[in-house]
């Protein structure tokens, strides 16, 4: 298949999945739909989307042995099994009672299975592995698990989403529910969906996690940012994933 045909297919795939996700009264839009045409093209073209460099790096790391167990991800998982995984995280791992996000899951394998040191937040290798895993779900609709144990965490996430905070006394909902589509300085306020993460953000000039994005939003309203390890982010992500149910995973998305 020529790359042009592949790109055309991909665009058709996103368009089709948006059509599927959106009944006539469904007003949800991916951040992709709020971007200019040039950025949409950059995201759609795998040879121009810089996020693909991280996907490629993740593919290399997937096969690399690490930790004192001297095992690679590939020694325990066939990559094909990762299809759909990113669409249903955060989830509660076996033997635990609190949810973790996808990067938390990867770090769990890092420490408990590979017996290596956990990756620090925004570590390039962690983001690359996460991108490689989530890339397997590209085009898959977000499908949070039915696990009833997640309900209280999701409810907590929704409460955080509606909490007014910071010196500007704003909540996520005021921007992303009530004022989505309007302008904030030069930027269009998106609906705030998590379907592209980790994303290549041009402002960052690198791939970054949903956590980093949420911290940016909090910083923007001059609110305190919870520590990287705080459970708030996973709770918020649970709510965001529920709110975005059915939207296709776009990893690696490009954002301004």
């Amino acid at each position: 298949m020529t790359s042009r045909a592949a790109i055309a297919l991909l665009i058709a795939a996103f368009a089709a999945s948006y059509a599927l996700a959106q009944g006539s009264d469904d007003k949800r839009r991916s951040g992709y739909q709020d971007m200019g045409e040039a950025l949409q093209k950059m995201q759609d073209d795998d040879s121009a989307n810089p996020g693909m460099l991280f996907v490629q790096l993740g593919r290399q790391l997937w096969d690399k042995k690490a930790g004192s167990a001297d095992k690679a991800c590939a020694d325990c998982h066939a990559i094909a099994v990762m299809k759909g995984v990113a669409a249903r995280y955060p989830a509660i791992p076996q033997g635990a009672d609190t949810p973790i996000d996808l990067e938390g899951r990867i770090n769990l394998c890092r420490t408990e299975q590979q017996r290596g040191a956990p990756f620090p937040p925004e570590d390039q290798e962690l983001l690359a592995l996460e991108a490689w895993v989530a890339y397997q779900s590209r085009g898959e609709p977000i499908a949070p698990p039915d696990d009833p144990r997640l309900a209280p965490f999701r409810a907590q996430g929704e409460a955080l989403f509606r909490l007014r905070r910071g010196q500007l006394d704003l909540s996520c909902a005021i921007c992303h529910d009530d004022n989505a589509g309007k302008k904030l300085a030069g930027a269009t306020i998106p609906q705030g969906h998590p379907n592209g993460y980790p994303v290549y953000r041009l402002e960052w000039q690198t791939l970054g996690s949903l956590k980093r994005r949420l911290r940016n939003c909090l910083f923007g309203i001059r609110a305190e940012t919870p520590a990287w390890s705080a459970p708030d982010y996973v709770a918020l992500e649970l709510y965001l994933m529920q709110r975005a149910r059915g939207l296709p995973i776009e990893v690696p998305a490009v954002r301004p």
Partner: protein
Amino acid sequence: MSNVLINAPKTAKSGELIELKALIMHPMETGFRPGTNGRIIPRNIIQRFVATWNGEEIFSMAFSPAIAANPFVSFFVVARQSGTVELHWTGDEGFDVKEQVAIAVG
């Protein structure tokens, strides 16, 4: 570990204008930014990119610190004979990455 994505046609007609696209992972550190310790982070950029077709230069460019990280280069060339296109990036801190693609011209 070098990390490059190249998009080039595998085949072309003689005399056809073809586009070559290449993306490379690189921080393009400007040399003007202070790090968390307040000290300037030393410059670390790609300085030069050269493309050759069967050894003959077909395109080159000089990079500057104002170019963003993970730079993307795209250029057009007229396909004349089958062979190998070599893309070569060199820069600060001994950065030196070469990649090759074969293009059949018929």
